[in-house]
């Protein structure tokens, strides 16, 4: 029986008076890759932002490795081992690739920075050639790799990926999902928000489907793929 790493219980989050997440419950076990799918505006990104402490829950709880993090600060959440690669990549475009990586590991001892960066460059060889370039000059795919590498610099136990393939060329989309599969093979636990439902379900063990703030469906990725509602709404079968 795997340990639950992340447990979200009846979480509600508001944007002003709009309920973006409505009583959502979700679980990610250690070693699992869980996909969270749903259309635009379903509340997936809001859910991830709330896990990271960028937004606050109106009600419900988030617990991670046994401790309640519903009201914890983002830096504390990162220190506990949850890292997020945000939607739209959000690399620091005016800073170099290297500086972006240093910032990713800012909560860790400075002495480890060089070794950690070297590890990332082995994982993402393309970044090595770009190390001293400012991140804003990278292509979209390269920026996405940098964003993932930066998120990994904090040595997370749980990686939250928000739309990592959004806006990328097809070849880059393939590459990003290959990276996700590699990370999965290395045993990293991931919660993956994606609009690319095909790919997400290929990589995930389990999946949740979200609609207008609610989780409407959950189950093993294979079962979700063959659910008539998912086939109709997301897979265009």
């Amino acid at each position, binding site marked *: 029986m795997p340990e639950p790493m992340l447990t979200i219980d009846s979480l509600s989050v508001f944007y002003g008076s709009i309920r973006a997440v409505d009583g959502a419950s979700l679980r990610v076990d250690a070693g699992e890759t869980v996909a969270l799918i749903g259309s635009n505006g379903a509340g997936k990104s809001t859910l991830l*932002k709330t896990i*990271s*402490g*960028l*937004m606050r829950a109106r009600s419900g709880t988030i617990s991670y490795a046994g401790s309640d993090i519903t009201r914890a600060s*983002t*830096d504390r959440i*990162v*220190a506990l081992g949850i*890292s*997020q690669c*945000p939607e739209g990549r*959000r*690399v*620091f*475009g*005016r*800073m170099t690739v290297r*500086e972006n990586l*240093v*910032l*990713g590991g*800012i*909560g860790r001892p*400075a002495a480890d920075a060089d070794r950690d960066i070297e590890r990332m460059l082995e994982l993402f060889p393309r970044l090595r050639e770009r190390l001293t370039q400012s991140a804003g000059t990278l292509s979209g795919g390269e920026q996405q790799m940098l964003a993932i590498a*930066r*998120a990994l610099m*904090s040595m997370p136990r749980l990686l939250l990926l928000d739309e990592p393939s959004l806006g990328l060329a097809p070849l880059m989309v393939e590459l990003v999902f290959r990276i996700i599969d590699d990370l999965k093979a290395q045993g990293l636990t991931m919660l993956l928000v994606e609009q690319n439902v095909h790919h997400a379900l290929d990589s995930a063990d389990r999946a949740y489907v979200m609609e207008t703030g609610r989780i409407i469906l959950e189950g093993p990725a294979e079962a979700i793929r063959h659910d008539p509602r998912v086939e109709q709404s997301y897979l265009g079968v």
Partner: protein
Amino acid sequence: MFDYFLQQGTNALSAGSLYAMMAVGLALIFSILRLINFAHGDVMMIAVYLFVFAGFAGIPILPSLLIMLVGTILIGLVMERIAYRPLRGGPEVALLLSSFAVGQILQNSALLASRLAGKPVQISFPAPELLSGAISLGPLLVPKLNVASFLIGTVLLALLTVFVTRTRLGLSMQAVAEDLPAARLMGIKVNRVVMVAFAIASGLAAVAGYLYASQAGQINPELGFTPVLKAFIAAVIGGFGSLSGAVLGAYLLAFLEVIPTTFAGIADILPPGTVSPGVHDLIAQVLPSSLASYRDAFVFVFLILMLLFRPNGILRGRAREDTP
């Protein structure tokens, strides 16, 4: 004649260094909080008062300078904690109004302290002996204070550059300035970054205040108004929020300011025989010595043109990503 221009140039360099020390503080805080901290000039003023009152208490000059520096940094930190932190995340205008309130509180504190100590509103502020007089640099006679302002300004700004670009804390600062939510996702402790920014800005304001007051020769609770205005203009010219822009803007502003002073009445000091009498009269008519009093108008006209044609400043300060 050439010496004359050189002399004016050294004046500009000295004034520019003071503006730069102030402007960089404004830009630093703006880049991180989106706050135009109009209390910054009053922080500079309070530094001078701390120094003067330490002197009244019989404390020698070096410890007084230390009290000034540490005290001003502490006041900056308290200001951030009480007046700005609770308003963070609210409308930016609330922060701005709060900065005006802080400025009033600081000014009235200085006034009250003077009253209680039985001192006049205007307190004389003699330049220290070490910085009195002038030194000759080749053909030029430059006041020591100007040399000190330039050297201290340059060294401090260089140190700041090293800090911002080479240290982890400095990188965190840049990250917060560029994209706040992304910076938080890195695990950066934003409160700490904000505090360091206020500490640096206040420390620079204290040093600038000391040099400024030494040049002015006397102080009053409103002395911070002109410097913060100049710093604001410098930051706008350079591109608000950009540190290098603020420095560039500060020196540009200082050079702009000496232009009217330099050329007003220049006909009177033209060496005889360099131009024909007709041209001499023309110059005297176009550039009368009374022109010097239009110095500020000249600068503001430049500022308006700048805002019209390049509203983002020379180095184009960029808007930050703030949506989470």
